[in-house]
């Protein structure tokens, strides 16, 4: 297997890849105003793996969609890859993976991966080569001609990841992609994802419910509070880069998991102090 390293186009020299300044989101509508997000400040540097974790309804998925310009922010600025979020979407700077694989039944696995390339009107040989390379990357090369329903849930998600990487995006947005899988498959997929991340160098923003998963995967864990969603803590994960099965048994791992858990619990109280110090830490990495 050719070991091509696929480097994504990083952010403009030095600057953060994603920058959120005072972002808030209010949903209007007949049910009344719902304040989903409040005063979010976050900076993410190139090559980071940042997890968003929080109780249900804390707005982490909403935040992810704001970064992806799938829904607009009510207030604040969102800069992705040095541009406004909308431009980043139009330039296809990111790839997205949802909780459900969202594969098209009427296409083969390979053609599903080719979808974004077709939309960009890449010529056929290039599309096919790229799709095959991506399938190799997620180790599904021999399933190119299968139909989505013939694959297991974990395999379908890998196809979705392959598709998300097809355009060599600078950023990968992932919304609880492994939420529907069983624990063992999940842990395997975590390893897979880290391997892919290592190969491509893409910046990843990862929404999850699972504390162990967040700690295992990330370079930083962003803890959010319940509605209105605020960042209550940002925790550096200083585990060695080369993570594997043994990492899960390290003492430091358990310490960090406990820290995240405590941050979540105290976040339920939601104090302004916690938010302020979180904001400082969130911005600490910006240039």
């Amino acid at each position, binding site marked *: 297997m050719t070991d091509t390293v696929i480097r994504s186009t990083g952010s403009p020299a030095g600057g953060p890849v994603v920058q959120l300044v005072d972002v808030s989101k209010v949903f209007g509508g007949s049910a009344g105003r719902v304040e989903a997000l409040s005063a979010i400040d976050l900076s993410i540097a190139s090559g980071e793996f940042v997890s968003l974790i929080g109780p249900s309804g804390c707005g982490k998925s909403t935040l992810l969609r704001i970064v992806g310009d799938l829904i607009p922010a009510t207030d604040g600025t969102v800069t992705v890859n040095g541009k406004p979020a909308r431009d980043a979407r*139009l330039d296809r700077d990111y790839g997205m993976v*949802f909780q*459900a694989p969202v594969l098209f039944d*009427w296409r083969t696995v390979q053609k599903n991966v080719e*979808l974004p390339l077709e939309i960009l009107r890449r010529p056929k040989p290039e599309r096919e080569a790229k799709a095959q390379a991506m399938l190799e990357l997620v180790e599904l090369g021999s399933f190119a001609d299968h139909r989505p329903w*013939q694959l297991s849930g974990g395999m379908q998600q890998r196809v979705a990841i392959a598709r998300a990487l097809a355009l060599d995006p600078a950023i990968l947005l992932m919304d609880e992609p492994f939420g529907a899988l069983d624990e063992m498959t999940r842990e395997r997929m975590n390893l897979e994802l880290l391997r892919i991340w290592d190969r491509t160098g893409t910046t990843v923003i990862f929404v999850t419910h699972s504390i162990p998963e967040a700690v295992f995967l990330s370079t930083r864990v962003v803890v959010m509070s319940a509605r209105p969603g605020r960042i209550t803590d940002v925790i550096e994960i200083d585990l060695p880069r080369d993570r594997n099965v043994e990492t899960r048994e390290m003492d430091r791992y358990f310490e960090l998991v406990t820290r995240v858990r405590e941050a979540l619990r105290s976040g339920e109280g939601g104090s302004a102090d916690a938010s302020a110090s979180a904001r400082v830490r969130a911005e600490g990495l910006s240039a």
Partner: protein
Amino acid sequence: MSVAVTTPSGRSAAARIGSGLRDWVPAAAVLVGFLVVWQLVVSIFQIKQFILPGPIAIAEAWQEDLPALWAATTYTLSEIITGLVLGVSAGLLVGVLTARFATARESLMPFAIAANSVPILAFAPVFNNWFGVANPLSKAMVAAVLCFFPVMINTVRGLTSVQPAALELMRSYAAGQLEVFRRVRVPNALPFIFTALRLSTTLATIGAIVGEYFAAPRSSLGQYIATASGFLNFERSWAAIVFAAAIGIGLYVLVVALERLVMPWYGSRDEVT
């Protein structure tokens, strides 16, 4: 690594057709049994040919009057096909336009659903007047109107019932409306459209034949059946009905074949089986 993976169908086409035919054995057995019993009952109990001629008598009548039957069948078939083409293409066109514009949907869909429950056949005399009794177009229009509404309704439903996650995905690709239409909505709509197409074959056949009952040239299936029945010549009526049934089944099989061609991925998910 993972379990529960099936390979793409490696069986040859012949093997697949073979197994498909085998599914039909019990049904064919019941059908043949039914025909045999029917004939026996008629012969043994000497039921007057009046009401229910035996299958053999029908076969004889068929043979006797074949030229007239055949002429009537081809005439009616032309009406049916014209009606199908007109109704289905109009239904598709209006369906696509309606799906595109939300305001059109809100008014046209309820109308189409209500209009679909109107006994369109009651309009047959009007069409006869407009186009002329002797003009096959008058019956073709009945068939066309009957097909139009189900096709239109199903086209709209198929184009609009896309899963929201797929639309989000396309939005993340900054894909334009036309792209979304082409790559997501149309493939999603195909199963719906084919359901309507299958229904249309039956509806068009009914529309043409029953339309002919009202008034039509002698050499048409509807008039043939009506006249033969009027003279209590039931073997001939049934012989003609066999032709009518053959048209219905034949067109249906054509649509199913087309469906397999256009949607090879679909499989038998939606069947009753």
